[in-house]
């Protein structure tokens, strides 16, 4: 179009607007500027993959299209045509994701393309923890790592410590093989999200091994005690799907949700009733509810398990339990009455915020399902599937990792960041014999590594993963479909090479091998056809699913004693897993940094959430910089006066406060775990997230808080 015609079109269009008859007229004119073929969809293909952002193990689909990038070859910049992942979606075939995906899952793309992702192996070039590294060749890095491994195994293989993530997947199986070949103890999970309390609780209440699943989609009343299942916890996509169905998926039936937690989480937002339990009072609430249910005659058809539950709850003093959890005895009785009257109730037992008594609390809450007869029935709690037992067995647990780390001659880190989630372990990392990291990024913990051998991104490698919770036997799986973007190597083959060089070879399991084994365990007559066909079909679908979960309780109740919580002490602090960053791993994704925090609407930082009563006493307003001090440490952060916070309860989400984690996360905000010291769940050793006593002090009146919306209340005329 030439300049004269352009102005002719613009003039006519403007006239149309002025006469107010722009609709059809502009349709006739605008195509001259934006031709119909203006949007030409590109050629795309979709490949199954497994999300690596949390332990849920969602099956996803990756949209792959052709792209170009510039690389340097012999000192010259040249263009290279490559296949690139453009978008992630849930895999509709996968029973966990069901074709849906959470915010963190989408942002997995920004881990793949993270500008601070390591381009190749690195060697430490400064003091441990400083994060200064120099690039080295794979040969040199592997030689250094192999020598360290050789010498550590020769000295004492029992002091080799492998810190990993709590997933039941191909990687966990290969780590187990590696450690077994070396004669070293099993790997440890070090995060705050290893579900040790949930696993132990299910074992004590139901006799099951693993994390149970809750069929809330078919429940009419869900009581969640300590499980913020909509924003994080075990499997947020699975449970959000189930929640949607529970609410509006059944004609004429709207399921009801009661949520008990010490903060007004996303699950509390969506609950019909929130029970604001004092931090640490979850156990007392569960026991009190049990006692009230016993008083109402629940558990009328006694089995051994029901009898055991009744006996344990009958000993509880309801008034004492009420005082310990901060809920009145009347409220506890009300909820118990509602549970007893519901046609299909279920109690979701969890520890989104791990406490010193979380394993007891989860066991007690789980025992409510026993009392209500809701174990292994539709709309109740279901046992974990038992396929691929070796992957389940390989799933790392907390397993006294701090003690072992303090005595380590070699530390290998894969997908774990204990220097962030347990800052008190930094000294042990600094003093460990040799530290090898398999991370793709230099994070708080990798900064202590002597050598970094960067792994492929989860989207660049094959995978077989068991979902952390599932109502059906299933695995998510994928073959490799794009080349690695940088000079990384899959950690599985790196471990195999290191073991071989130490004279302790093992054969790493690959996706095909794991699926072949799955086919074999299903046995003849499973309808799966030949082994080759089974593997091919699973990799094409991105998942396999078998029978629905089923089975009742076989367990013997062993509830612990409960202690009165610290309810009289003002200002206790607790950390929690954030929706956008999880336990911190998402902080280097710019999409997630700019995603408004659900509670405070904060972006590019997370605030100390202070209740209005405490804030008023200390004259603290939104954005003021506040110092919080505990017996274990202190931090400074902007304040957010949370209208829904329990008076005297200060909370802060995990995610910010990384000493090292790339340009988007390093040095940004404060790490809430620095206030907690070495708190642990007393039975499992899992890292606890509070409560601790804190002292608050306002430092500056300021604008320390960036909020997407500064408006907490919908006050006319600002309706939107």
């Amino acid at each position: 179009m030439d300049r004269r015609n352009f102005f002719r079109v613009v003039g006519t269009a403007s006239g149309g607007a002025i006469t107010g008859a722009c609709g059809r007229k502009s349709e006739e004119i605008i195509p001259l500027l934006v031709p119909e073929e203006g949007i030409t969809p590109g050629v795309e293909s979709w490949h199954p993959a497994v999300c690596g952002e949390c332990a849920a193990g969602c099956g996803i689909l990756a949209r792959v299209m052709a792209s170009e990038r510039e690389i340097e070859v012999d000192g010259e910049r040249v263009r290279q045509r490559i296949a690139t992942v453009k978008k992630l979606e849930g895999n509709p075939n996968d029973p966990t994701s069901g074709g849906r995906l959470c915010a963190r899952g989408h942002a997995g793309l920004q881990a793949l393309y993270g500008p601070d992702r390591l381009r190749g192996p690195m060697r430490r070039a400064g003091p441990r923890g400083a994060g200064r590294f120099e690039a080295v060749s794979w040969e040199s890095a592997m030689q250094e790592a192999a020598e360290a491994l050789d010498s550590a195994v020769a000295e004492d293989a029992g002091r080799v410590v492998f810190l990993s993530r709590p997933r039941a997947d191909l990687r966990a199986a290969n780590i187990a093989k590696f450690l077994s070949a070396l004669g070293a103890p099993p790997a440890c999970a070090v995060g705050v999200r290893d579900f040790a309390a949930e696993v132990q609780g299910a074992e004590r209440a139901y006799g099951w091994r693993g994390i149970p699943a809750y069929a809330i989609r078919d429940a009419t009343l869900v009581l969640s005690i300590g499980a913020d299942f909509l924003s994080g916890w075990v499997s947020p996509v699975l449970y959000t799907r189930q929640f949607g169905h529970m609410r509006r998926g059944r004609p004429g039936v709207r399921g009801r949700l009661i949520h008990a937690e010490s903060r007004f989480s996303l699950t509390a937002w969506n609950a019909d009733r929130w029970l604001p339990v004092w931090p640490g009072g979850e156990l007392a609430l569960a026991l009190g509810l049990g006692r009230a249910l016993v008083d109402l005659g629940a558990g009328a058809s006694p089995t051994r398990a029901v009898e055991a539950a009744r006996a344990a709850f009958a000993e509880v003093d309801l008034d004492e339990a009420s005082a310990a959890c901060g809920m009145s005895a009347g409220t506890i009785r009300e909820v118990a009455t509602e549970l007893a009257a519901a046609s299909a109730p279920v109690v979701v037992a969890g520890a989104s915020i791990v406490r010193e008594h979380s394993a007891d609390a989860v066991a007690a809450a789980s025992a409510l399902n026993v009392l209500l007869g809701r174990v292994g029935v539709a709309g109740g709690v279901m046992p974990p599937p038992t396929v691929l037992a070796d992957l389940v067995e390989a799933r790392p647990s907390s397993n006294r990792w701090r003690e072992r780390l303090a005595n380590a001659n070699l530390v290998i880190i894969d997908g774990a960041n204990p220097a962030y989630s347990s800052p008190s372990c930094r000294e042990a990392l600094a003093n460990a014999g040799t530290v090898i990291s398999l991370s793709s990024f230099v994070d708080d913990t990798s900064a202590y590594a002597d050598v970094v051998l960067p792994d492929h991104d989860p989207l660049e490698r094959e995978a077989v993963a068991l979902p952390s919770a599932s109502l059906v036997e299933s695995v998510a799986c994928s073959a490799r479909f794009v080349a690695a973007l940088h000079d990384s190597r899959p950690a599985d083959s790196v471990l195999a090479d290191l073991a071989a060089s130490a004279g302790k070879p093992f054969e790493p399991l690959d996706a095909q091998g794991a699926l072949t084994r799955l086919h074999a365990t299903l046995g003849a007559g499973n309808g799966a056809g030949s082994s080759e066909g089974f593997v091919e079909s699973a990799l094409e679908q991105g998942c396999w699913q078998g029978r629905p979960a089923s089975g009742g309780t076989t367990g013997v109740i062993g509830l612990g004693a409960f202690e009165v919580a610290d309810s009289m002490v003002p200002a206790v602090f607790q950390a929690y897993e954030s929706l956008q960053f999880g336990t911190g791993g998402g902080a280097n994704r710019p999409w997630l940094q700019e995603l408004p925090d659900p509670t405070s609407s904060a972006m590019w930082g997370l605030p100390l959430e202070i209740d209005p009563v405490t804030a008023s006493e200390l004259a603290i307003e939104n954005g003021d910089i506040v110092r919080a001090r505990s017996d274990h440490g202190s931090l400074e952060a902007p304040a957010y006066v949370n209208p829904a916070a329990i008076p005297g309860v200060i909370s802060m989400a995990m995610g910010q406060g990384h000493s090292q984690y790339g340009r988007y996360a390093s040095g940004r905000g404060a790490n809430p775990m620095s206030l907690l010291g070495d708190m642990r769940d007393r039975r499992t050793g899992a890292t606890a997230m509070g409560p601790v006593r804190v002292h608050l002090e306002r430092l500056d009146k300021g604008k320390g808080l960036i909020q997407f919306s500064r408006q907490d209340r919908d006050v006319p005329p600002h309706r939107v």
Partner: protein
Amino acid sequence: MPEGSTEAGTGTQRRTPQWGMAIDLDRCTGCEACVVACASENNVPTAGEDQAAKGRTKHWIRIDRYYEGDFPNIRVRHRPVLCQQCDEAPCEPVCPVNATYQNAEGLNVQIYNRCIGTRYCAINCPYTVRFFNWYPPEWAEPLGLQLNPDVSVRPAGVVEKCTFCVQRIKRAKLNATAEGREVGDGEIQPACVQSCPAEAMVFGDLSDPSSRVARLANSRRAQRLLEELGTKPRVFYLERAD
């Protein structure tokens, strides 16, 4: 309710769809999966800390959340807010260069290469869902590889907004045409709809009474945001039961 018009095809009469959306607030949890899905699909750039502090972030879809009451009797009302694709869109008549208009299928279309950046449309939008590009978008390499080639990257000086993922509408239509059929109900899913774990969002043809979105829009729980302004939005919210 928008009525479908009929347009002449190649020898056959086809109804022009009237796109709309229904969002069930009893299902929606406010998890913000839709927000990131949208940014990923539509190349919506992050503003960065400094610009975010000036209120210059771009979220084509956002979750509005308001607290009601006081502890312990407190609750949150939340809803996803995106361009409401109004039939009487306040943003359209104020554009001096006609860069925004409603197309035959009911989409409020933004033509980036016509926009001269007066921001009148953004000011006049009661839903605050239009965003001005103060600076050229930047992606630190290799983040640029994430960009969706089906969606143009908007330059500095123009206003951008939700398009109901018009590129997905176009792809579905092309696929249907190639296969000699109509686009099926539920076949088109904007990125937010596709992502939503609670299945709270439904997209489709409001002029087809049998479509899921039309049925939901006729629900007794259905309301439209700021309906009293007469904007005739095409996004219907099904209010929470409580």
